[in-house]
């Protein structure tokens, strides 16, 4: 009995285990995650409770919360409160009309924003009851519903007109117009049909509308096609209301959908007619509309699949088609485009790092680090996991290839190739070659019965018809490199090889062909793909993307906007895009114009996402699949928002010289030199970070700027002139604004640059010149008059002076004549005296007689000479002397006469022939004659003298001198015998002893002696006007002493004439030369 129970228990246990295992491997093991971009208090929203969202004409998104109004430009939130002229901080609802945006408040206040400033239409203090809804009627008037005080009409000029419900003030939560005179009101107990009496301002309840549950009506919106209304109740569902004549047709929506709408807060119809239902407690529902089938599918966004909350207050679609979700308690969120879907797998069970993807007609195959996941497309995405239990190794699934879903080939990173045929449910190892690298599979592809496998050691080709395996490596077939990372078969059947090389290779007809794409080193080619126009695109690690054209190669890199030059896979879609995967995001290149759109947070890709090498696939529906370390990202182009609006441009501030100024269409500034900074914003809520700007300041810039991301421009030193700042922008898709935004800047010309100033200035200058000329003319005339007067006056003076001068001239002439006459008399006297002096001087014949070889030069300065020579012969001796008396001219002549007289007396009469004795007596006689008794009292006239006594008998020469010397040249040598420093006359020398030195010289043959006065040596002349000097005379004499005496005389005279040139003779000159 126990044994039986045990067996039964074991059997039950076995069954349970089997069921568990089946469930384990067949229950969907992945979740679809809807990505949203969250904006909370940390990002600048004043409160995480969002009550309303709207967008103004400038593109700003307005978010009403319980604690202020936030304005969002895509990047930053700016909060406005009652301090900024809002009626109240608590905003309950909003509405955008053509004139601006209207806001209702919890206090009953109403605020209007005209695009520049807020205006309190009803201040909070005058509000009656919470504003629940805002509707614009057919005439463009704005109506507000209050919770307990009926409706409020805002008429022109913001005039307020209340409309109250007759008798029973039922709470109004929402309302709308059936026609100008009929409305439907959402109450706490259903939908009520009412009429409006605009004359009396009363609302008359007609009746509750049947078919709508007596539940609280949360929202009434007009259908986009304007055929009716959508009515949403709090807990009883959503309805479509259509007016047919006087009747209402009510149709409940979403009955066939598995949705539970409880705690509904509102309904919103987007531009595709999908309905969005926000709820408290059940998240957000999207009822997908199909024109043919109506609402046949619903998506629930909730805290379990990415929304992070189940409490959604409001939904709004902006002009670009972005869906904004106002959450209650968790802030604002933007739903990432539905075209991008994220799938994540149970990390622990299956692994969520996706290395390979393949989608065939029946299955999605996903390779992870833990095995292979098969997702059955026909069984509501039921999945099966293939791991060790199914014949696969514990290894990374690096490549997948499926032949019609029946023959599955799987490549592993380390364990080679595996194959599963038909429905065997188990893989087996497919041997291709021994070796570690040969069994490291990078990619698998195929065509017909050919399988191509890229490994780290070449390409393996399996012919399934023959099971023949062929390898291509560097040395077998000519591969550029053995490590082949990817194989791609293009539309023409070429098999493109991605490897480390500088050539792109493909296999065609079993031959490896090469295309050189880089002449500078090798490229790490990771992936190859083909675009819709059959161009080949190549992705590389480090060098970006290459497009191979028949005639050229185009390189797209990060400079062109690629997220990174490291590309891990490339794949082309059917919408003329090339998708490139990177670490942290995707790049999408438009094949037509190469515009690159980076895709990161803007489509929900977390920057920590790393897309794996060649983990991409495009299925037959055009859906592109990307494998990453965070699961799978799928891009479905059919769901992509086709709206691509250019950024909405506006200026945000203008600063003049660092001070902000009011924004106007035209900036008019007084003359000056300005630093102008212009800030602007291009609102593209879809991808605000990708907005780029181009600008030009007409009148300053010659060309448009390059595209910039900064939202400001500064101009330093703008001078006077008319400028127009033009701005355009493009969004992340490259859509540019059609019209430029303009700001006119007028810097007024300074006064001195204005035309009237020129005219005035010219007139002034001309006037000034004329005035000047006139003044000058006047002055000139005046001066002329004065001058003429002066001329007359001066002329009189001159005449007078002339007359005086003539008188003086006559007197001078008379004096001159007198002087001339006297001078002639004196000259005649002197001339006569000269004759007397000449008579006194020994005749030249005597000289020639006594001294045959001799010459005498006697050149008086004036007519008579102060120098004299004298000679005589006594007792066989020839006494010869040359003397220089003090002074020259007449005084000198007198002295010479005195000297000659005394010499005749001393020598000829007294017979004294000794040289020194002669001079002694001569001196004594002069002193006596001139009565020179003492130095102080007598005139100091006298004479210098050189005296020689030549005794031919004794062949002896005596010489004594008073100051004058004797020059003897003997044997071509000059011997100088100086005279005593005693003059012939009263001597100044105190130590004089009364005698002269007697020099006795033995005459030798050839001796020649010279005596001279100082007239020759003291004469000025020469180049520098100097004295001739004794030294130069000695040199001359030494040079000429051998010449005949008469020649020596000529030379000395010529030498002196040459020396003097134009100089005046300053003294008497006397030289005597005697050859002994």
């Amino acid at each position, binding site marked *: 009995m126990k044994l039986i129970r045990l067996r039964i228990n074991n059997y039950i246990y076995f069954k349970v285990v089997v069921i568990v295992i089946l469930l384990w491997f067949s229950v969907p093991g992945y979740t679809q995650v809807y990505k949203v971009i969250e904006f909370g208090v940390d990002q600048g929203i004043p*409160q*995480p*409770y969002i009550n309303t969202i709207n967008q103004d004409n400038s593109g700003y998104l307005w978010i009403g919360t*319980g*604690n202020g109004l936030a304005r969002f430009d895509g990047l930053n939130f700016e909060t406005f409160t009652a301090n900024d002229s809002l009626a109240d901080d*608590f905003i309950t609802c909003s509405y955008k009309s053509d004139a601006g945006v209207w806001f209702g408040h*919890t*206090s009953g206040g109403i605020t209007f924003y005209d695009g520049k400033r807020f205006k309190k239409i009803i201040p909070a203090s005058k509000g009656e*009851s*919470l504003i629940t809804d805002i509707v614009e009627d057919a005439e463009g008037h704005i109506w507000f519903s209050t*919770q307990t005080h009926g409706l409020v009409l805002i008429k022109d000029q913001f005039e307020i007109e209340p409309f109250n419900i007759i008798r029973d003030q039922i*709470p109004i939560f929402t309302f709308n117009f059936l026609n100008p005179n009929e409305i439907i009101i959402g109450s*706490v*107990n259903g939908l009520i049909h009412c009429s409006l009496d605009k004359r009396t301002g009363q609302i008359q309840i007609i009746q509750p509308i049947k078919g709508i549950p007596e539940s*609280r009506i949360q929202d009434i919106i007009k259908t986009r096609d304007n055929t009716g209304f959508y009515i949403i109740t*709090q*807990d009883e569902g959503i309805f479509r209301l259509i007016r047919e004549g006087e009747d209402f047709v009510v149709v409940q929506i979403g009955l066939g959908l598995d949705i539970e709408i409880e705690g509904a807060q509102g309904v919103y119809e987007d531009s595709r007619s999908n309905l969005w239902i926000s709820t*408290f*407690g059940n998240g957000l529902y999207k009822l997908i509309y199909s024109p043919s089938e109506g609402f046949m599918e619903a998506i629930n966004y909730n805290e379990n699949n990415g929304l992070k909350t*189940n*409490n959604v207050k409001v939904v709004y679609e902006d002009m670009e088609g972005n869906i904004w979700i106002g959450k*209650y*308690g968790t802030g604002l969120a933007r739903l990432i485009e539905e075209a991008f879907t994220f799938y994540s797998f149970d990390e622990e069970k299956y692994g969520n790092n996706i290395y390979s993807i393949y989608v065939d007609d029946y299955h999605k195959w996903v390779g992870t680090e833990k095995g292979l996941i098969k997702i059955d497309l026909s069984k509501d995405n039921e999945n099966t996991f293939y791991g060790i239990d199914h014949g696969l190794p514990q290894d990374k699934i690096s490549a997948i290839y499926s032949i019609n879903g029946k023959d599955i080939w799987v490549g592993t990173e380390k364990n080679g190739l595996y194959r599963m045929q038909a429905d065997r449910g188990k893989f087996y190892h497919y041997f291709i070659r021994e070796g570690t690298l040969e069994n490291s599979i990078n990619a698998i592809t195929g065509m017909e019965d050919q399988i191509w496998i890229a490994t780290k050691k070449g390409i393996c080709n399996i012919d399934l018809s023959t099971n023949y395996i062929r390898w291509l490596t560097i040395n077998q077939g000519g591969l550029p490199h053995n490590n082949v990372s990817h194989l791609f078969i293009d539309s023409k059947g070429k098999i493109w090889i991605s490897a480390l090389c500088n050539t792109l290779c493909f296999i065609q007809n079993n031959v490896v062909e090469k295309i050189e794409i880089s002449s500078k080193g090798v490229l790490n080619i990771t992936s190859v793909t083909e675009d819709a126009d059959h161009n080949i695109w190549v992705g590389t690690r480090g060098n970006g993307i290459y497009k191979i054209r028949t005639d050229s190669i185009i390189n797209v890199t990060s400079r062109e906007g690629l997220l990174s030059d490291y590309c891990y896979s490339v794949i082309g879609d059917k919408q003329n895009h090339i998708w490139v995967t990177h670490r942290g995001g995707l790049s999408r290149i438009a094949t037509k114009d190469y515009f690159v759109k980076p895709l990161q947070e803007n489509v929900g890709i977390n920057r920590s996402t790393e897309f794996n090498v060649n983990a991409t696939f495009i299925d037959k529906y055009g859906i592109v699949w990307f494998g990453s370390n965070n699961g799978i990202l799928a891009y479905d182009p059919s769901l992509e928002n086709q709206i691509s609006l250019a950024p909405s441009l506006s200026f945000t501030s203008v600063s003049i010289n660092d001070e902000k100024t009011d924004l106007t269409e035209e900036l008019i500034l007084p003359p000056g030199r300005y630093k102008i900074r212009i800030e602007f914003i291009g609102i593209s809520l879809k991808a605000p970070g990708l907005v780029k700007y181009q600008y030009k300041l007409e009148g300053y810039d010659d060309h448009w700027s390059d595209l910039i991301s900064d939202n400001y421009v500064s101009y330093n030193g703008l001078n006077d002139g008319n400028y127009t700042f033009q701005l355009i922008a493009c969004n992340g898709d490259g859509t540019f604004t059609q019209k430029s935004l303009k700001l006119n800047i007028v810097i007024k010309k300074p006064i001195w640059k204005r035309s009237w100033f020129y005219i005035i200035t010219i007139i002034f200058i001309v006037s000034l010149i004329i005035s000047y000329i006139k003044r000058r003319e006047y002055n000139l005339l005046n001066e002329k008059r004065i001058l003429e007067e002066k001329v007359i006056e001066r002329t009189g003076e001159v005449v007078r002076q002339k007359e005086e001068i003539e008188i003086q001239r006559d007197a001078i002439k008379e004096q001159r004549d007198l002087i001339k006459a006297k001078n002639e008399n004196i000259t005649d006297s002197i001339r006569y005296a000269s004759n007397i002096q000449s008579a006194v001087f020994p005749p030249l014949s005597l000289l020639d007689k006594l001294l045959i070889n001799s010459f005498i030069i006697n050149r008086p300065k004036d007519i008579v000479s102060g120098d004299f020579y004298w000679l005589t012969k006594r007792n066989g001796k020839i006494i010869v002397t040359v003397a220089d008396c003090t002074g020259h001219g007449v005084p000198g002549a007198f002295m010479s006469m005195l000297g000659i007289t005394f010499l005749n007396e001393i020598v000829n009469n007294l017979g004294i022939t000794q040289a020194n004795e002669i001079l002694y007596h001569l001196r004594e006689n002069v002193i006596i004659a001139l009565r020179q008794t003492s130095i102080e009292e007598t005139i100091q006239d006298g004479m210098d003298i050189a005296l020689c006594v030549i005794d031919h008998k004794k062949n002896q020469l005596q010489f004594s001198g008073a100051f004058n010397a004797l020059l003897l040249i003997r044997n071509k040598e000059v011997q100088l015998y100086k005279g005593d420093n005693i003059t012939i006359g009263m001597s100044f020398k105190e130590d004089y002893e009364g005698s002269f030195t007697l020099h006795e010289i033995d005459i030798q043959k050839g001796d020649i002696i010279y005596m001279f006065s100082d007239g020759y040596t003291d004469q000025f002349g020469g180049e520098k006007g100097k004295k001739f000097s004794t030294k130069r005379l000695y040199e001359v004499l030494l040079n000429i002493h051998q010449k005949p005496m008469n020649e020596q005389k000529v030379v000395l005279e010529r030498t002196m004439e040459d020396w003097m040139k134009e100089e005046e003779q300053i003294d008497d000159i006397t030289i005597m030369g005697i050859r002994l």
Partner: protein
Amino acid sequence: MKNRYKNYWITILFILIVYNLYSQSAPAAEENIPYLVTFGANADKSWGDDDFCQIFFFRIPMNQTEPIYIRVFDPDTGGELDEGKGEFDTQVSFSVYGGEGCWSDEDARGVDPTGNYKSGNLLASRTFKTSNKYDNEWYTFGPFNPFEGEYVEKYDGRIFKIIAEGLSGDDGNLYKYFLSTSPKENKEVEGGNVFTYEYTFRLSNDQNNVSQIYPYIDDRTISIEISNYDWDDDGFIRIVSVAKNGLLCETSGESNWVVREFPIIEEEKNTSIEIQFIKNRAKLIKNNNVVVTVQNQYGDLLPFFVVPIGGIPVYNPKIRMKVIDKR
């Protein structure tokens, strides 16, 4: 085996005790009152509800920024908890109010639901029909933005109001409230308070149970009037305070009000007095529903603070510093 079950029950009891000690439910666990009660509009007042309406206030502290929820236990009428009078046919609406006037409007704090007692902004409402869908289950109103409440300087917080109103039928709807930060479980709002001015509740069916409520006596009070309605001779009511040691209060009979005035001495000011409801132990009176109010000498109703039990919290403590002369 017995020991094992014993430990199990002790554990559950301990968890319940701990849970209730820190909960913000009305009635509070300390009051030993099982349920609040509101009858349908067609009910006989002698069944214990004088006006088929019950108003409770929730104070949210100013520092509360997370959403708050008001949860109602067993809001519909039907099932095993509610008091059926024949076949269940009762509709009771629960409406949550906030905004200006929610508390400050005098009508909101009155004994009778007259005038503008539905003052403020209607934030949420739901009418529960005869159903047992929420039998022994919680229904959650919210989330509410704390800023949707009315700011009351006196309480240094924002006030929400919930009105339970019997719309039709004659059954008694028994329910409880919980002020929570979670829509799915009862998680107290830190610093939150719950109070009412007229307390309509169900007495326990257990004869040994003593229920008590704690009206707060402020410093302006010199006397209080305790009113009770429809006591049904179910024992007696006793007043206990720091100065009153079990004064008996007259009890009402069937479907009538009894008012008894008690003088308040200095010692009792700024304290809570305890009103004990002691069941008749001689005779079991089941399903006894009572209405109690307390007002001061001016006729102002004094709030029953359910959370924290019995005492108004010090919202703005004023601490006066006195300079000590060191010499």
